[in-house]
């Protein structure tokens, strides 16, 4: 397997994880059996570009809150059950002199054989300066953690085990099936509710999807594990998602669709659309850009 695909496969596996959300809405980023909760913590910081307060809570009773932005740890704003927090807590911005103390705190919270949870909240725009703080890459280097590899590979001396290939076609599929999809939206697809037409028109690039709300509520297609994760996301984040779609819409109340991904033309992307009361959420594989645009135009027609 191409080494470059390892992070993607690891994330796809996490997408299919059955239990990722802890009571209270926090996400579980490391379970008791994980070899390196610390790597999971640093990857969480590494994947946070916009300003966020990340509250990490361990099952050992300790917790801390970091303000992060642009792959940097800007500040430590709260800590519970930890000693040696004063220098970091009192700093307006974390600098090189704080890195050793901060690492000790991170190691205490992200202790082995403990479940680690994270919840994120926004921070004020004025607190987002990205020219300050400690780069997560620096912390990872000091801790000998590779931010881009699955956990097993980040343990010194351990060869990364090749993760099992994902075989979406072999996974059990959801019970609600749709008619076979055409590779391009044709005249026959321009019937029925809009989101379903759009989803069918996006096939085969759209490998898993579901519709929540509206007259097509409960319509799904794709691997059950993926559908289940998407369903859970909508249950938890439905209101926030609606607000986000309001912000990207040019005209309130009109249909809107967003594809969000690393490159948009390779790998996987998230697809989300809203029409009336209905939400469509799905996963796109490969380059679906042209198919999506045609399907969208056909669905609107």
């Amino acid at each position, binding site marked *: 397997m191409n080494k470059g695909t390892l*992070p*993607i496969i690891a*994330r*796809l596996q*996490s*997408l299919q994880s059955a239990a*990722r959300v802890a009571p209270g809405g926090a*996400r579980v980023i490391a379970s008791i059996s994980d070899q390196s909760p610390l790597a999971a913590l640093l990857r969480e910081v590494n*994947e*946070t*570009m*916009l300003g966020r307060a990340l509250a990490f809570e361990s099952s050992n009773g300790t917790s801390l809150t970091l303000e992060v932005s*642009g*792959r940097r740890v800007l500040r430590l704003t709260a800590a519970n059950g930890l000693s040696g927090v004063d220098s970091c807590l009192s700093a307006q911005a974390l600098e090189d002199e704080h890195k050793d103390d901060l690492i000790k705190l991170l190691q205490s919270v992200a202790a082995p054989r403990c479940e680690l949870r994270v919840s*994120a909240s926004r921070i004020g725009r004025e607190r*987002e300066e*990205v020219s300050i703080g400690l780069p997560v890459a620096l912390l990872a280097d000091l801790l000998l953690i590779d931010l881009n590899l699955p956990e097993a590979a980040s343990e010194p001396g351990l060869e990364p085990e090749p993760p099992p290939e994902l075989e979406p076609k072999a996974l059990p599929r959801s019970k609600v099936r749709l008619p076979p999809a055409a590779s391009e939206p044709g005249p026959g697809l321009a019937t029925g509710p809009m989101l379903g037409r759009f989803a069918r028109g996006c096939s085969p690039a759209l490998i898993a999807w579901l519709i929540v709300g509206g007259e097509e509520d409960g319509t799904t297609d794709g691997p059950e594990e993926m559908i289940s*994760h998407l369903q859970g*996301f909508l249950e938890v*984040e439905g209101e*926030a*998602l609606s607000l*986000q779609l309001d*912000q*990207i*819409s*040019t*005209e309130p109340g*009109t*249909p*809107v*669709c*967003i*594809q*969000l*991904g*690393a*490159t*948009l*033309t390779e*790998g*996987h*992307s*998230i697809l*989300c659309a809203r029409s009336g009361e209905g939400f469509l959420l799905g*996963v796109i594989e490969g*380059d679906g*850009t*042209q198919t*999506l*645009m045609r399907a*969208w*135009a056909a669905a*609107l027609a």
Partner: protein
Amino acid sequence: MGVIESLGAVVKAYPQARAVAFADLSSSMILASQGRDDVTQEILDRLCKQARASFDDPLFSLSVEAFGEPHGAIVMGLESVRVFLRSESEPADALCCICDHGIDLAGFVARIRETLEHITAGG
């Protein structure tokens, strides 16, 4: 080639691109733009806010958790297609584009990705 020239070259190559703007997402500010005359500053300001919202939660977190950090977004509405790309090396740098339906999206995305990295590299 300067920023304006780079953006202008994209518009010239893709006439269905109504506007191509270089923005700083951290300050939500359009720094340079090229395109049709009817694209006003107010439209560009709104475009920049939409770009920032596109790379925000909850979809940002879902994408990160599932596939890694997103650097591209395509937003489709009734009237237009908007494409937002963030630089991989300087995540606050972004290109924000308004296009007509029917544009060659795959080719356009590849072109503006190249343009963005060129601009970010100081070219």
